[in-house]
């Protein structure tokens, strides 16, 4: 019973192992990067657009609108990071249709890496927006006593992000494997459809939570009071 794609070894040389997680991550990166490069070679701004360009435009404007709804005011600053998170996790779970493929997010190392990226990105964007002292002041926000709790909440948010995504992806593949040994044909197909749905929802949840954390780190703390209207 394979718990994760870490255990599929494709090639081994001494201490360096090329396991399923690495290979599938590289394949996903290749598809995303090369696919986007090919589609955006000849962008047109007229009325005639290729289907692929329309697809990319739908995806990009959709993500931009979602980021703006969360409360981040200049989505173009954050769409690189948040959009990549969403597209990587969504494509990782979408490709489970392909036989022989295991989602790399079903391994705790991948999800921990993604959660660590969010952990680093939140102070990065916070300091970029508010300066170092402004961002550090947010840790003592209600009172100084809350300082350890704020730090603990940062770390536990990161852990929750990693374990949530890992648990959902791993349970999807494991349920499928167990059901295939119990009931043939129809029930495993229904469960794999459910797995696709939860994969998409988890991709959305991961990126929206990252956006909410970044928004809470970059929001304006003390808005300037409006000047009183002269009668």
């Amino acid at each position, binding site marked *: 019973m394979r*718990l994760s794609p870490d255990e599929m070894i494709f090639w081994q040389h001494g201490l360096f192992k090329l396991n399923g997680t690495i290979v599938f991550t590289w394949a996903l990166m290749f598809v995303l990067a090369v696919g986007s490069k090919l589609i955006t070679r000849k962008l047109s701004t007229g009325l005639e657009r290729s289907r692929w360009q329309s697809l990319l435009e739908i995806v990009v404007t959709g993500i931009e609108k979602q980021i703006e709804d969360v409360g981040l005011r200049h989505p173009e600053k954050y769409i690189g990071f948040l959009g990549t998170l969403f597209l990587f996790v969504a494509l990782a779970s979408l490709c489970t249709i392909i036989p022989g493929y295991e989602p790399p997010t079903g391994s705790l190392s991948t999800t921990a890496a993604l959660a660590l990226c969010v952990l680093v990105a939140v102070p990065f964007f916070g300091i970029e927006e508010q300066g170092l002292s402004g961002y550090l002041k947010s840790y003592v926000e209600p009172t100084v006593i809350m300082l350890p709790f704020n730090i603990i909440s940062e770390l536990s948010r990161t852990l929750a992000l990693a374990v*949530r995504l890992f*648990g*959902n992806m791993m349970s999807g593949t494991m349920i499928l494997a167990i059901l295939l040994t119990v009931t043939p044909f129809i029930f495993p197909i229904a469960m794999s459809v459910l797995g696709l749905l939860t994969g998409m*929802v988890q991709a*959305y*949840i991961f990126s*929206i939570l990252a956006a909410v954390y970044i928004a809470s780190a970059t929001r304006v703390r003390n808005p300037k009071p409006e000047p009183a209207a002269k009668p």
Partner: protein
Amino acid sequence: MDSITLIAMASIVTAGLTIALGSIGPALGEGRAVATALSSLAQQPDSATTITRTLFVGLAMIESIAIYCFVVSMILIFANPFWNHVIAQATGK
């Protein structure tokens, strides 16, 4: 009862109890969340997208509690360090 039997028994029983008890709470919580979301959708259909998005985020946070219990259960069944230790001892002897 030797330690191998004891560890196996404890792991199996705990794995079953973990996932059984651990899915009661999130299921009740998600039911309440969806019920409240539906009633607010009925009251204000115009903010359907905001309500739906917040509902999904809330459901994911509640679901992660059940996922934690599931992960512990899986670890007890498939990656149990105590079981591996006693098996290694038993086969090493």
